[in-house]
């Protein structure tokens, strides 16, 4: 698709940032980072830095958007003007509108929408710094924010991309690989249900390569899933620890 003037993978199969083909970028996940939101999460995925906040279930505003038989999930994916090399206008672009839609549709299968009629959950995602694969990192963080808000879920949703770079199927493309590579396949997945909730692709792949990329992305998702669960537990361990301390102090008094 693009002219390949620069090599993205060396002879030993090592990528520009030192990773192997099936290796993830370093990840950092934190839950409960914003005090005003009902639930929140922060993700660093490579150089991506993304905040997600969830509000609700709460009354829908405006009211006429409420549905009599189920909850409404709303998502807003938004990039900060300073998140990319050239300043991005803060007005929502067509890309952001589309991503907000597919992210919402990747999270909806995890929620019991029919159990909360007439209510709404709002998820706001702010990309503070972008480095390829923001939609995936956003989904991983948004699922944590919703869980942190205490909204029951069938499973956490976790997302990761795979793609084709220099004729090799690789996991978790960074910005340069995304732009210069041959194909990009973002996948969102609910591991314990074996259900794919987001699947997109651009570039050109043979059917076999496509299948391998989807499989590789799902395996990446499974690894991130463990970190996601750990991050969620970590927050509540801290809460438990402080509660225990407070109780101890009370006993001492």
């Amino acid at each position, binding site marked *: 698709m693009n002219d390949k003037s620069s090599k993205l993978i060396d002879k030993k199969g090592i990528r520009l940032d030192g990773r192997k083909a099936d290796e993830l970028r370093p990840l950092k996940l934190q839950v409960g980072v914003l005090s005003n939101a009902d639930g929140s999460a922060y993700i660093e995925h490579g150089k991506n830095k993304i905040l997600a906040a969830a509000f609700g279930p709460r009354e829908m505003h405006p009211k006429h958007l409420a549905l009599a038989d189920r909850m409404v999930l709303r998502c807003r994916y938004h990039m900060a003007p300073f998140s990319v090399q050239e300043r991005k206008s803060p007005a929502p672009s067509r890309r952001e509108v589309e991503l907000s839609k597919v992210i919402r*549709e990747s999270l909806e*299968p995890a929620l019991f929408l029919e159990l909360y009629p007439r209510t709404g959950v709002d998820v706001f995602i702010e990309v503070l710094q972008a480095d390829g694969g923001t939609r995936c990192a956003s989904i991983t963080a948004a699922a944590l924010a919703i869980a942190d808000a205490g909204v029951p879920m069938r499973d956490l949703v976790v997302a990761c991309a795979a793609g084709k770079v220099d004729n090799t199927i690789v996991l978790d493309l960074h910005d340069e690989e995304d732009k210069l590579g041959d194909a990009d396949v973002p996948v969102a997945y609910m591991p314990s249900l074996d259900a794919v*909730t987001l699947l997109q*692709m*651009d570039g050109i*792949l*043979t059917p076999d390569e*496509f*299948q391998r990329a989807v499989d590789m992305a*799902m395996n990446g998702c499974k690894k991130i899933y463990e970190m996601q669960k750990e991050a969620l537990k970590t927050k509540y361990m801290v809460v438990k620890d402080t509660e225990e301390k407070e109780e101890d102090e009370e006993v001492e008094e």
Partner: protein
Amino acid sequence: MSSLITRVRLKQISQHIENGKRLDERGLHDYRPIKIEQGVIEKAEGSARIYLGKTEVLVGVKVETGEPFPDTPDRGVQTVNAELVPLASPNFEPGPPDENSIELARIVDRGLRESNAIDTAKLCIDAGKKVFVVFVDVYVLNYDGNLIDASALAALAALMNTKLPNYEYKDGELKIKQGFTQLPLKSRPITVTIGKINNQLVIDPQLEEEQVMDSRLSIAINEQGNICAVQKGGSSYFTPQQILEASKLAQAKAAELRKKFDW
């Protein structure tokens, strides 16, 4: 989407599907009758109107000159826009494009762009300064489901029908000459949408099926049978097995359409 009436209808539709049939007696993997007319708008450089069952989409292509993008100074520009015109459905409203029309435009755009359908290298007039800009405008005239496949087919048909003006370029001046040449195309992608209703995969969902379907997968296939764009939509999921099945189905159906239209 799931109002109470459609839930009752869902039962009916899924019972039909379990028996391998659709509401309109089609098979699970059959398209509705397709008719394409090319060159229906004389003032546009290219145009095509498609009838997919009762779904009707008109695509007009306008070609103008403009500046290239800074990262591709020697390439022409492709832009796709979609209008869900209010006369096409009681549920379409006038106003700025909503997420559905933006998604539709971006799916059509991605299919064409990623397969390198338009040979943009041949649309360069003066590198970094002047190139041809190809505007593909998707106009939905009657909505009865599966706008994605109808729009993608019509967009390709319109591009195949598009003529570029002959020109002369001297000292930064563009002079339009007599006559036209065909818009250079490198590939002819075909997009196939697979709907999932009660864990069954169906091709070309019509409106009522769309209202009850769980999710959809749109897959663009080029002449070599390779996949060049994918988009999942809808509030449900696909299992890995269903994705494999859908990609095989898309290939078979794309090949069938290619043969039918001799593309």
